[in-house]
């Protein structure tokens, strides 16, 4: 006790004399995370270590049972918790036109609140803003994940998506790539709505010549092995991989070139003609060429069941403005208008893609977890959809550690950023999540987030909730 009446100053003085000044000679770091179980995404091993973080990087790892190496400005006791690199959503879109700029910007906080510390923007019509946000985030004036962006997509004349660079001839290829280089984008994203097969392949080759990273859809008039040969680095979605696994690929490609069948007509045919030998050959070629595949299973499922599922009560709608939700209508109407047969085909395709993803993974093809969230992609909500993607991967038979690897680890390898990201080891950027429970036991535990560390910034569970609260859209309730 010792405190008597109000004479605190005298008391405190006597306490100092009693206890002496506390000299602290240890070097200070910004943050120490003690006793956590660190998940190594490379080996799948879990090790208890103390993490010392300074200036946004992991300065050192220390043994938890030894005397702390440094003193810290913040200390997190992560005993019983699980630590892994912050999640990467390897396929998002910032888009929807000028009306949706602020709503898109809000998603930056939603990503962080979901433990996503890096997103790969696979193209949209808000590139100048994305570049501005990216700058703000790196300078610490804006909260959000690191953004790697393709900038505008490359497509053909009259492209589906607003803001695309339209390639109609070989000169356009040079112009488009020059323009992306000037914008300082991080990779080249190709789309398949209007570009010719020939120019598509040439664009990939030219981009590879310039040492750019490429990813894309693929016009169905092209064979997968041609795209692989052109040097593509990642294939977005599974349609194109499926095409490469068909023993009728050449025949069907011819029919597609002749326009006797269309894209969706080809789906059930490709599915039926899936052949083990062809598939194995394709898998081997993807693997040998270090080509990543982005399965986007979750969005596949959501879109395949748009005609049945009721999303009106989804809690994540609260982060979307009405104008944003309006962009969902196109796909919804499409689904509702589709024939019963086409709807059934779509669901079968969805199941088939699950199996294909399992086979790809088993064959050792690198996968990337990407949600494809963004305007127009109905009910695939920014943030949570990455976790749904991981769940979907595990549901088709991929192990939790392999699923986790497809996020930050593979994501950073694909973008050649693995010197900075992907593992909790000395020297890497300190983008981390601390989970309350082990995601290797249950992949849904990736959603039990206690802390997110984004470089030098720490968010505890309460602060994460505040981030979300800040971007909740106030809906006018109808009287």
């Amino acid at each position, binding site marked *: 006790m010792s405190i008597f009446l109000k004479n605190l100053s005298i008391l405190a003085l006597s306490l100092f004399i009693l206890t002496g000044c506390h000299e602290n000679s240890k070097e200070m770091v910004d943050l*120490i995370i003690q006793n956590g179980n660190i998940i190594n995404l490379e080996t799948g091993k879990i090790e208890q270590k103390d993490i010392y973080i300074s200036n946004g990087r992991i300065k050192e790892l220390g043994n938890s049972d030894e005397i702390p190496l440094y003193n810290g400005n913040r200390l997190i006791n992560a005993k019983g918790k699980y630590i892994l690199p912050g999640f990467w959503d390897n396929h998002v879109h910032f888009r929807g036109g000028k009306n949706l700029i602020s709503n898109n910007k809000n998603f930056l906080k939603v990503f962080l609140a979901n433990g996503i510390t890096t997103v790969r923007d696979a193209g949209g019509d808000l590139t100048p803003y994305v570049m501005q946000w990216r700058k703000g985030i790196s300078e610490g004036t804006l909260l959000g994940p690191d953004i790697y962006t393709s900038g505008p997509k490359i497509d053909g004349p009259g492209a589906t998506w607003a803001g695309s660079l339209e390639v109609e001839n070989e000169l356009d290829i040079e112009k488009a790539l020059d323009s992306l280089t000037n914008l300082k984008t991080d990779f080249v994203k190709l789309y398949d709505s209007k570009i010719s097969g020939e120019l598509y392949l040439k664009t990939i080759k030219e981009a590879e010549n310039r040492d750019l990273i490429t990813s894309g859809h693929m016009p169905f008039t092209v064979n997968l092995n041609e795209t692989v040969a052109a040097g593509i680095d990642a294939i977005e979605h599974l349609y194109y991989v499926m095409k490469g696994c068909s023993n009728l690929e050449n025949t069907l490609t011819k029919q597609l070139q002749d326009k006797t069948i269309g894209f969706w007509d080809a789906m059930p045919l490709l599915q039926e003609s899936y052949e083990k030998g062809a598939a194995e050959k394709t898998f081997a070629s993807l693997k040998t060429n270090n080509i990543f595949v982005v399965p986007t299973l979750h969005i596949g499922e959501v879109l395949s069941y748009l005609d049945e599922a009721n999303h009106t009560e989804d809690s994540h709608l609260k982060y979307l403005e009405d104008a944003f939700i309006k962009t969902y209508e196109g796909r919804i109407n499409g689904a509702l208008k589709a024939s019963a047969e086409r709807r059934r085909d779509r669901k079968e395709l969805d199941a088939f893609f699950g199996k294909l993803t399992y086979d790809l993974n088993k064959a050792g093809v690198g996968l990337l977890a990407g949600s494809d969230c963004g305007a127009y992609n109905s009910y695939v909500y920014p943030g949570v959809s990455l976790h749904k993607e991981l769940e979907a991967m595990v549901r088709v038979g991929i192990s939790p550690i392999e699923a986790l690897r497809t996020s930050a680890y593979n994501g950073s390898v694909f973008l050649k950023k693995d010197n900075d990201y992907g593992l909790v080891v000395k020297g890497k950027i300190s983008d981390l999540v601390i989970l309350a429970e082990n995601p290797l036991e249950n992949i849904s535990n990736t959603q039990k987030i206690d802390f997110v560390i984004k470089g030098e910034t720490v968010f505890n569970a309460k602060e994460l909730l505040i981030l979300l609260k800040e971007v909740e859209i106030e809906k006018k309730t109808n009287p």
Partner: protein
Amino acid sequence: MKKLFIAGAILTFISCNQPQDKISDTTILISNVTVIDVTTGELFPDMQMVIDSGKIKKIVTSIENKEIYKNIIDGQGKYALPGLAEMHAHIPSPPTSKERTEETLFLYLSNGITTIRGMLGHPSHLELRKAAEKGELLSPRIFTSSPSLNGNSVTSTQEAREKVITYKNDGYDFLKIHPGIKRDVFDELVKTANESGITFSGHVPVDVGIKHALESRYASIDHVDGFLEGLVPRSENINPNDNGFFGYNFTKMADTSRIDELVKLSKNNKVWIVPTQSLFERWFAPVDGELLLQQSEMKYMPSSTLSEWRKRKEASTGQDTNFDKTQWETFIDIRRKLIYALNKTGHGLLLGSDAPQLFNVPGFSIHHEIEGLLKSGLSPLEIIQTGTVNPAIFFDMETVFGQLKEGMTADILLVNSNPIEDIHALKDLSGVMVRGKWISKADIDQKLQQIAKNASAN
């Protein structure tokens, strides 16, 4: 039905006789003793307790080949209960000599205290804790607070963060909160403590207030600090800084019908309370200091300490102060009501007297604290629980100490009569075992004599 349940409890409590294990030279048998289950107050007469390697190996009804035991303590007619915890202890710091420090630790042991929670930490206590743990020092089990966090030692949020983290890394068991901390600094302190995994205990700074303190989840609030102030209705328009000695100045304005609300808040937030009522029944009480100084235990304190106590009592309850016997009677009545309610319907109490604060001789003062709890209306069993099983729960070490069970640490208090019937039995001990080491009454007396001799020389 009830009998059946009890029979079941006995079965789990007492294991069956098993073939004899090998007996080592260090094995101790406490024979024919009545074992007290402090969780229920049940007695188990005529038990054989086998102690080895610091642990309770067995508690059985009968034992074969008694003659092979080289160390037998005759428990006939005696009662065994877990050693007590002094949850508001002070461990001496330099410049107190090593000898006096060790003597102080023995004073705790000599009264059956096998666990202490030091409430004003010093780097030297970390060494003592380690030495006690390793068995290199005859001492109760030690938990130690950090050095004081108070209005002068933490003046900014940054300082709060730095100190909390430093103390956590230094290895202190918890943080000690003293008065004077500003609310925003306190909040940063709490946040940092929660994140870094260290608890905090002690006083309630005026700027924080009892409600916010409870909601901030102190591990323990000591001295029942802040509660009396919390009973004063807002309409009284008091200046919170005029509270005086633990709210004494607000005595007349306290509304005891508000006790339930505070008690409920402490229960909901799982905050333990350490009353240190001994201070309010002796030091801050209408009791003649000279009479207290004549008590036999005072001989274990250096005379310089005793004269300091005399002076300080005079300064707080003497002629020239605002101390008033009638007001004290109301004051102590409110405190007793609070203590009773906090035990009955709150999260619970921890036994702690605050030694060696005024007139509290380490170890011996626990009996004055017990007396204070008795006057507050607690039963002997409830009092014993505040010093045994409650502290074990508090430290999340229920399987390590706080009860007499096979596998638990051999911290045992052996007394000559049944303390459940009369709590004063705790003063009449036949010996203490600390982590398996037996200290007989004769050993205690001999050592106490030496301590008294050393104290008088200072």
